[in-house]
């Protein structure tokens, strides 16, 4: 029962954060695809950086064991194909599965229609699943991470992701200077509050990312680990 209460509480915070950012509005979300409004990119990558740096440093300080985090299995081909289909639906709907619930909760009929469409689409796919299953199961099927793919230390990849995200933020802020203003967006959707927190957050992310690259691994170095390394190898391998 506790786990379901935790799930509900985490969901409340998740929905609250999405609505605060304005991501309950399909018009605001689609602005990302028409290069008018980059809220989706800014929110998504700020969230990814926060959670990525958070797990790295909580692991490094020994407060969590990163080995216990569930990394989704990679089935590359079905995920690339599924992503392309998903993206097409995302552009049409103007909302993704999580934000469709926020949109519906704030009184938007189009959000409720996306929720209903998702339910229909998942149900229909499930009914025809036996035909899709060979493709669905193809391509790997294990946890596979970017550090493994690139043969780089975990902390170095963390720094690369931080650098890439900050470069993307800088690029869209240059583009955004001369974008056409969506008059409907201005009328329907209130603009964002300017807090100018971005600069300080960027410096913090870069500092934590650089320190992660220097630390290399999100696992706390322990005396036990050194002891294991120092232990003499048995003469006969087992």
């Amino acid at each position: 029962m506790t786990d379901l209460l935790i799930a509900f509480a985490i969901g409340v915070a998740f929905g609250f954060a999405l609505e605060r950012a304005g991501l309950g509005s399909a018009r605001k979300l689609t602005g990302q695809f028409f290069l008018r409004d980059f809220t989706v990119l800014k929110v998504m990558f700020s969230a990814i950086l926060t959670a990525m740096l958070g797990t790295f440093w909580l692991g490094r300080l020994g407060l969590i064991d990163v080995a216990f985090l569930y990394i989704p299995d990679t089935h590359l081909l079905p995920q690339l194909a599924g992503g392309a289909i998903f993206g097409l639906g995302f552009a049409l709907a103007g909302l993704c599965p999580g934000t469709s619930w926020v949109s519906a909760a704030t009184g938007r009929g189009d959000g409720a229609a996306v929720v209903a469409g998702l339910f229909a689409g998942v149900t229909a796919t499930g009914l025809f699943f036996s035909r899709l299953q060979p493709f669905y199961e193809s391509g790997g099927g294990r946890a596979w991470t970017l550090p493994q793919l690139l043969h780089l230390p975990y902390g170095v990849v963390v720094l690369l992701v931080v650098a890439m995200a900050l470069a993307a933020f800088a690029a869209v802020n240059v583009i955004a200077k001369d974008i056409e203003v969506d008059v409907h967006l201005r009328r329907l959707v209130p603009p964002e509050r300017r807090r100018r927190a971005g600069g300080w957050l960027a410096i913090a992310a870069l500092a934590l990312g650089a320190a992660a690259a220097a630390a290399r691994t999100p696992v706390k170095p322990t005396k036990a680990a050194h002891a294991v390394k120092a232990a003499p190898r048995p003469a006969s391998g087992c």
Partner: protein
Amino acid sequence: MKYSDPYLAGVGLGLVLLAAFVLTGHGLGASGAFATTAAGSVAAVAPGYAASNAYFGRYVNSPDGPWRDWLLFEILGVFVGGFLSAALAGRLRGLVERGSGVSVRSRLAIAFGGGAVMGLGAVLARGCTSGQALTGGALLSVGSWGFMLTAFAAAYAAAPAIKGSWR
């Protein structure tokens, strides 16, 4: 009332994701809630079929059944959290967001169709923007970054055709 600064809202969202990692060991999701609801609904109509279906069976035959699912309770929370945030900011109002040249009926049909297409994509990709892009992205999963790449590439490829309907 104005929306929050997107970077601050993103950091807030990232802290929620981090809390999910620390408290539960896994991250956030949304499409999984649709999967378990679909499985439970099919099982209510045809229990034998649902249990033998390779996709629905996973949810129906789980020890707790399809309705006592972590993601289902999380998504109910998303609804409540979105409602609370909008209510506190005075942003609750009934409307159908659409371009000026699009009727309410066609916007609802496009929204439903887009949702259905996303449903197929999310099943194949084993998750959506929450479970793959955010959660798998933060854990540096190759499949999640691949999903993110093709999802946004497809959305940008479709954008010129859709742009007119949002004027």
